[in-house]
Structure formats: structure tokens, C-alpha cells
């Protein structure tokens, strides 16, 4: 039951992008087209779920060795390596997706969401299962926000946006409305 609550909480209530502000760069950068948004989502879910599992083990190891202060360095290196592997994997299995994602794939490394999830898991002292579920759910929340946003942006291409607002500015204002809508989910679940 608790796992289901963690899932709902991460996806709707403390949505990674819209209320925790993690993962904004790809959120703004990859949401122009639906295809790249979906592709990015799949890659992010994969990377974050795997990294949640990996970083949990490393965190336990570091703490038991009294080297807790090395967490940041170890986590980010692991994430960088993981992203390299995923990049390699996608290149082999789906070259078109690889092309579509372009530079955004290696940029998953600097996606605050990936490192953020790992840090949150260690801070909240989640168990292994809880960490992986939290990671997976946060990534789903990120993807949901990303895909909704991409759908809106694709529509906005046909709208008459005033010149200063074109591009990033109007996207941010749209994001704020989306964030406002998601605020309605607060208090939905009592964890």
C-alpha cells in the first residue's frame, strides 16, 4: 500500500518537474515535438529506475565504510557511466530514436532529476524497493509532465504569440499554468 502511495505522491502531488523543479532543462528543451518527448521519457524512466537501484547499493556501501561524504561524487560518476551505456544501447537497438534525441541523450547526465532522485532516496532512507519505486514513479511523473507539455507546445506553434514571448517565455508561462493545475492534487494522499 505504501508503495502505491509513494507512486501517486511522486507522480501527481510532488511532481518532479512542476513542484520540485527537477528536470527543467530537458522539460524546456525536448518538449517541442511529441516524438522526442516520448523518446526522452522512455530513456529517462530507464535511466532513473536503474540508477535508483545502483545508487541504493552504493549508498549503503559508502555509509557502512563511513565515506558518506563521497556520495555526491560517486553518484554523479555512476550516473554518467549509466547514461553512456544507455546511449550505446539505444544506438544499437533504435538508431532513429538515437537521431531524434540527439544531444539530449548525453544531457540526461546533467538532468537534475536523475541525481535528485538518488539524493532524495538516500535522504529519506528508503529501502531498496522503496527507492526503485520512488525512482520509477518520479520518472513517470516527469514523463507525464513532459508529454502533456509537448502536446500543448505543438499546438502553440500555430498560435499568434507576441514577439517577446516567443520560445522560452511562453513555455514557462504555460508551465506555470500546468503547475497551478497540478497543485490541485495536493492533499490527495496522506502518506
Amino acid at each position, binding site marked *: 500500500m505504501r508503495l502505491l502511495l509513494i507512486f501517486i505522491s511522486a507522480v501527481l*502531488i*510532488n511532481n518532479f518537474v512542476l513542484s520540485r523543479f527537477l528536470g527543467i532543462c530537458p522539460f524546456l528543451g525536448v518538449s517541442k515535438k511529441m516524438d522526442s518527448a516520448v523518446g526522452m521519457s522512455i530513456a529517462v524512466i530507464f535511466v532513473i529506475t536503474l540508477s535508483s537501484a545502483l545508487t541504493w547499493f552504493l549508498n549503503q556501501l559508502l555509509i557502512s565504510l563511513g565515506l558518506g*561524504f*563521497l556520495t555526491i*561524487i560517486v553518484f554523479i*560518476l555512476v550516473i554518467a557511466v549509466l547514461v553512456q551505456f544507455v546511449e550505446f544501447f539505444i544506438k544499437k537497438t533504435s538508431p532513429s530514436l538515437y537521431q531524434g534525441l540527439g544531444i539530449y541523450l548525453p544531457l540526461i547526465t546533467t538532468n537534475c532529476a536523475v541525481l535528485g532522485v538518488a539524493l532524495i532516496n538516500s535522504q529519506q532512507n528508503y529501502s531498496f524497493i522503496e527507492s526503485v519505486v520512488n525512482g520509477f514513479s518520479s520518472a513517470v511523473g516527469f514523463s507525464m509532465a513532459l508529454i502533456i507539455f509537448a502536446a500543448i507546445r505543438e499546438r502553440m506553434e500555430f498560435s499568434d504569440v507576441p514577439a517577446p514571448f516567443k520560445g522560452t517565455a511562453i513555455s514557462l508561462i504555460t508551465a506555470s499554468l500546468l503547475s497551478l493545475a497540478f497543485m490541485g492534487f*495536493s*492533499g490527495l494522499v*496522506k*502518506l
Partner: protein
Amino acid sequence: MKDYIKTGLILMAYMVVTGFLVALVYVVTKPKVDEADFRSKVSAIESVLKKAGTDELLVESVPNSAEKLNGYIYKKAEGELFKASNGSKVLSPLYKFAGKNQEVYVITFSGVGFGGDVVCVGAFIKQDGVLTLNKIEVINYSNETPGLGANISLEQVKERFSVIPGSGLENGVKVNKDVGVTAQTEEEIKYNKSQGVVQTSDVMTGATITPRAVANGINTVIEYLRKEGEI
């Protein structure tokens, strides 16, 4: 192959050097870090150990080091000490101080608020077998809405939870909105408190969930103390 080994070794060399430097900074700052952590923990405890509305301490002195503070631990557990069905918790560790012919429990508890747990520290005085709540400090309310629930940290709101007499605690603490009364004068507020009704609707307009979380937390503390045979 030799190339890979060479680059691998260079990378390892950098990691070892940086790891060593970071470890150095860690060792140098550790005493200061521990001190800062301790001071933040003890400032809330010191505040609730003061008689409500005054600067007078209920006990001889407040511990000034982590070891001394640990000497006052009365109960502790791996996770939380107790969890109620509504999600409120009594957290570990629980301290007990000896005061002037009374015992003071300093208890960390939480209730389920708007966006997460609202964590408080409270000093409960046990004198002649009767328990009263002296004062609370709210130490974590970061998930509550600024301007609404977050106002739980204001002095005038916390003060409403101070000095709840034994009769009030026995009845069960509730916020006035949940009981449907609104006191008009200071005497009425005080009387309601003796019945367990805490007036928050005038100092925290538009926010009931957060003070209710605190009330639930206090009730859970009473439930726990009863279960442990303390009262």
C-alpha cells in the same frame, strides 16, 4: 588496449587525489558540522523547556553537548517510537528531564499536514500524576503552504498550543474549527483550551489542516504515553 588502461589509470589518479582532498575538508569541518547539527536540535528543546511566555527554564540547565543531551534519552527506537492510525507519529528519541518536583518529557512528534508531516517538539510536564503541555516548537513545516499552513511557525499561533492543562489533554486536543466554536475573548480562549479546544481560526485564517496536524500529533503523544504507562 594500452590506451584504455592508460586513460583508466589517469582517471583513477584524479579520483584518488580529489577523494583525498575532499576527505581532508570533511575531517577538518566535521567538528563544526556536528556542533551546528547539535545546536539546531537543542535550540528547539531549549525553547520548549522554558516556561510558556517567560524565559524561565523548567529544569536546572539545558545540555550543551550531544553527549550530555543523550544522557537524558528516556526512550528510543530504530524508526519511530509509535505510529497512530491517522498517520501521526511519536519520533525517537524521547527525552525526560527532572524539574522542580515535576518531570518534563521532551517529545518530538508529527502529524500529517497538507503536503507532508508537520514535525514539532513539545515539553510535557508531569506533576502529581497530571500531564500538561507547556509549549511546542514547530521544527519542520516545509511542505505546508506559505502564507497559510506555514503560519504555524508564527509565535501567536504556537502560543495557542501552549499551556494546555491536563483536562484539555484528556479530552483530546482539537482545533476550534473542528468543534464549531469561536472564542471571542481571552478568557473564552483559555476556558476552551482547558476543554482541549485550541483556537486557531483567527490567527491562521484559511488553514485548518496544518494546525489539525499538530493537534493530532499531541493526541498521539498522549495515546503513546498512556500505552507506555507513563500517565
